[in-house]
């Protein structure tokens, strides 16, 4: 089978996406969409010597690629990194060993690491007149998230951690929130929550939080016992 019939290439703004044309099982698809087994390729040369198609062709020697997201700048050059996922999530480990070696054989020194799949944004300095449930409603309008965690660090002072489905959706949420940040007051600020942060999900602190399922249509505002009252 040739490349075209196996994979579908598309470009939206600065991302070239190469996706498999294979129809996948719903569960597997949602698992993959959440970023399971994602690899982070870096040190991609800026010139055209290392096209997204080429990378996928090399990577599929190991197994079928589910998706690759390849970032470019305005002149179409690579921004130096890309994300790669196999349909078989278990291939991640072997890919991390095999791919750098294979790339080196082809005289390309790409680095392959597990992706942190950072998908949490933190919203700070929200105007105090806005209650958490209002923030919750506003943020839902901007971009759907999976979980919000609210922390009250002083009386009536909150900060919010929003978790999105995957890194891609968090990135677009970040952009949209930034464009309408003034809804949340003069000094409101949104930023990425790095994995090293103590509150990040990766570091495993689960205190004072309540998850909000995404499937429920009528959502309850997050409520934390003892933290604040409505």
């Amino acid at each position, binding site marked *: 089978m040739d490349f075209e019939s196996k994979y579908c290439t598309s470009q939206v*703004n600065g991302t070239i996406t190469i996706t498999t044309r294979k129809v996948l099982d719903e569960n597997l698809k949602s698992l993959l969409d959440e970023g399971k087994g994602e690899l982070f390729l870096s040190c991609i040369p800026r010139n055209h010597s290392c096209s997204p198609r080429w990378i996928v062709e090399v990577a599929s020697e190991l197994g079928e690629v589910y998706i690759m997201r390849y970032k*470019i700048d305005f*002149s179409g050059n690579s921004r130096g990194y890309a994300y790669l996922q196999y349909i078989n999530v278990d291939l991640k480990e072997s890919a991390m060993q095999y791919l750098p070696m294979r790339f080196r054989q082809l005289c390309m020194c790409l680095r392959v690491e597990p992706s942190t799949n950072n998908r949490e944004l933190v919203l700070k300095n929200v105007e105090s007149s806005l209650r958490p449930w209002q923030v919750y409603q506003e943020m839902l309008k901007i971009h759907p998230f999976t979980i919000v965690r609210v922390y009250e660090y002083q009386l009536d002072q909150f900060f919010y951690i929003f978790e999105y489905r995957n890194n891609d959706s968090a990135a677009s949420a970040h952009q949209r929130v930034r464009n309408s940040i*003034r809804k949340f007051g003069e000094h409101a600020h949104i930023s990425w929550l790095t994995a090293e942060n103590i509150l990040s999900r990766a570091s495993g602190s689960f205190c004072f939080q309540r998850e909000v399922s995404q499937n429920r249509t009528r959502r309850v505002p997050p409520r934390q016992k003892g933290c604040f009252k409505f």
Partner: protein
Amino acid sequence: MNHIIQDKYIPQQLLYFLAGRRCCQQFPCTFRTSEHEAFANNARSLGLRSQVVHVNGNSCVKVYKQACRHYLEEPKTLVLSSGATLNMFTLLSRKSLMGKEDLELYADLVSMKANASDLPSLHLPLPAIRPPNLRFWTEAQLNFLTAFLGHSLSDEILQSLYASRVIVYNAALCWDKSVFLPLVILDDCRNKKSNVKIMCIERQAILATYNSQRTANFFGEQLGETVGIQLPYFSAVSSSTFIIYSTAQYFLRSLTSQQFRNISHLVVNDVHLHDPYTDILLSEIRMALSSHQNLRVVLLSQMGNPKKFTDFFGEGLQLNMIKQPEVAPRVSYLNELHSCIALAGIHKGPDIYKEIPEAFRANNPRNEQMDKCLQAYGELGTDAALRPFLYAVNYDLAPVNYRHSLTGKTAVHFASELNKANHLRLLLFMGADPYIVDLFQQNAISLAAMNGNHECIDVLNSYSLHGYVVKSAKPDFVDYDLIIDIMYLLRTKPEYSPGEYSPGNILIILPTYYHIVKLNYMILSHCLTGSLQECSIFLLYDNMRNDYLQALVNASDETVKVVLATDIIESLCLKVPFKYQIDTACRLNNVYDTTSCSGDDRFEWVAKDALLRRELILQPNKGDVQCFRLISKEAYEELSETSQPSLQTMQLDKICLAVKLLSPNTIISEYLGITISPPPLINVHHAVQFLKKIDVLDDAEDVTWLGCRLMDIPVSCQLGRMLIFGILLRCLDPILTIVSSLSTADPLGIPFTEDIDNLWDRFTIYIQNSIKKERTYLSDNQFSDHFIFVRLYKEWQNRMHNRTPPLYLKDEYEFMLNGLMEQLTSIRSEIVSSLRAANLIHSRGKLSMNNLNQMSCNWHMVKAALTGGMYPNIYAVDTRKSSLKSAFSGNVSMHPNTVLRDFLEPLNISAQSFRTPWIVCNRQKSHIVYATLVVPLAVAMFSGHPRIRLSPICDSEMSLTDRNVNVFIDEWIWMVMSKATAEMVMRTRYYFFKMYHDLLKHCSELDMWRRDCEPVSQYTVLTDTLSKIFESEDGFVGFFKPPPITFLPTPQLPSLYLLSVNAHFSWAREVEENMLSKPHHFNSHFIERQFFVLYAGGDCEEFHSRNTPAFIESVLGKFVRPIDTPNRHIFVILYRKDPDMMLSISRAKFVNGVFMLQEYFRNNIPVFEILDACVSLNVQTPVFDGRLMSALIDKRVGNLIMELFAFRHHWIHKR
């Protein structure tokens, strides 16, 4: 030989020059130094002046006539302050800078030319071309296809497409060609299984977005699947994309690398409009046809005779579908409109403000001066006596109908009294109104008759016979009052919309965004006061956000829509039926004027064919439609058939750059000469010379690095260069504000009397003075109009507290300010994203936004950046001759707009307070509209070509003793300074331009601009020192310390203000909310209105935060159950004591059963004004007493208060 040259040749050359038209000439440096003296002597004997100048190290002679204003007669001195000297010295003595040798060699070694391979290219991802494997059309899709007007002809279209490579498809807008044709072609290729990739080229991004969205909807997909889009900031394509929409400008940019590969069909829309980039694309296509045999080109047009396109290509078929419609709409012209309105007896607008005494006259110097002018004319009556008055009208924006403060007489009165027929004729031509009566109840006609001045009576008679209202006879002014009158005619007089009862949608075509915003407020205020029925207002303009268009597309059919649009409506295929069209028939055109070397914004009538196209938007086949043209029948008859292609009139700087990138090896003028609308050679020549001067092109006409970077920045080259200087001097934010302000209308521009609506035009002088005062206040003694832009923007930003502007209205100025600032912020963010795309702003490192704004608070740095960016628009004041000199030709005067001069103030008086002789400015024609005084050092440092060497320094003969040297920055900027200063300045200059060059060349190498990178961090030292230097220079020259301009790091400003206001006050909303659609009760007379006053204690904000709507409801309920029905509106007026004033007026409503207040207007209106108004209109005066929490007031008083709120004038009522 020497003798022959000196005795024969030189005098002969000088005589030629004397006989010629040029005012000055530079004789080449091939003459020997000994001959310079001969030149000078000969010139003196012929009465010419001469001067030895140095150009690139060679001295040559310049000779000029007495009247020449190009050159400085004597050099301007430059003396550095001690602080600046010290700083500069320390800077230059730093070891880490480059050595002396480096400096000397640098300028020669480094080529400023960019290699062809280095040119930044745009990436247009076009996947390989394939045959489509689409499903068959569904029934809905088939229905959709058959609904197109051209569906029955699709076979014919395809036949001609097989027969010829180029077809011109000519059909009206409603055929929706740019959606229909790609679908037809795709359908055909699917059946034939042939390769297909269709590129659809639109004129503007918004059109591409709109059309691609509709085509994607046809497939029921998202953009980026079968239908893709390619725009600078939004692109979505994939390997299964077969139709791609783009704009001509963007597509041309990608052509350099892409050629026409992977494209099977090219559909170019709106070729008849001759958009400059479309015209260039056509010649590119013509060239490509020879190498790409299989390329098929479809040109879509709507014009009478498309033969010129087939002629241009030398091949091709025409498909002409334009037929004369059987039913033409009723078209009325200006003359009929005026009589129609006079007959209808429209009672519009507020009575209250019509009665305002003209107490604002007198007691200001400008009125006194004008009175003196008139009085002198009245006494003398000579030509010379009229001249000052004419001057004031022509150059100082004084109204020609100015009335004397004491007698109420106008110039026309005097002229007819004194029997000056030629003066009278002139004044009438200038727009004077002879029917104005003075305090003795006499008008010009009666005065002439009384004095038996037959000649004047004749003139006045012929005027009244062919009488025209000048305000609307010129394309320069849009008669808003007339548009409102027509709206009244249509909406309140049912006899003018006969037949059906349902009112139709109205389309109003205006020339610019500024006009749209202004009219928007006027219509809103008339609607909210209830004198016009409610309607929904929609706006369409160039560069609008898609949301505006979507709002109109998604509006329900029930609503009466009033659409205010620019000429973009000619290319937007909307599914909205319009019943009436009000067409101002004018447009704004940027015309390059070769005599003054500047592009002027000119208002012109549109051509006949454009009017015809607009007429067809009405779709006359669908019932009774009417078209009002605000142009007199006579003027219409004289219009040309087609308008001139803009390529032939516009300023060509961006075009030249684009052309140079398309074909780097062709001479620009040659390339443009073979386009379909070749521009005049002189325009191209000027543009190329200008680009060479500002270092966008080099001497060999190749693109420099600067040119490469400016390519994708959506402003003119000059403004783009200003941005680069803003980046270099790290004061990007104010420069961004200035650049985007220069690209929008100025909210604080001083209006002509014609711009002010007729309610207030008696107060023209007062309003102009107030605006001038506001400008002076904002400029804060900085002698800068550009500073006003920065201040105004910051003040507006601070007032918003970074929140969306409130949805209540205050007055027209506030509304316009918000509207214009909306446009400004959108231009600003567009520029920022383009700078990011061009790698001039990075997300981190030295070129991060924060770093680039370190100097933003220092106005002296911004001035320095302005000097560099505005070059060559630099003027020098010659106080002795009281004139302005520059590289451009002669008579330049300062527009009353600039803060550098007062009204009616001659230059030598205003120049007395100038701190320096150097002015950088923006011109319109020969008027300086925006100017800034800058220090001489800034001129010496940043103007001129980046590569001038030490050579411009030369010793002047007579000043050898004090070691002063002459410095020629360019061919006319001539300074004298001490030798040490000169050397230091030139050194620093090199150093600066090395940074300039490094930035432009290496800005895409992100690693080089990291925070810790050594060579680049030296530049930080440079800018820091420059800041110190200019600060001490500013103080030394005597500028006052500017008020701090704060820089807000992330100005995320609200956009879409106008959209939300119009949606807020839209009738459609009310219908939905009340679930009661009764379109039959349209006449406003059926509506009963009740007004309550409420005591608010403090201000509105406080009141609303303290009281819930439920509480207000209960207060009102004490009087009467406030039931709001479609026929009964309830208004709540808030007031306060000490000082007694009315604060706001809101409408009380029940939305889904919940009581709420919708605030209409908020302002401060003193109670005494209301009492006065009541007296003058014979209404019983109400009592406003704080003891009463609330009261029901008389309907007439209520209406009166409403009108006071709605028609308040910012400048007149400003206290």
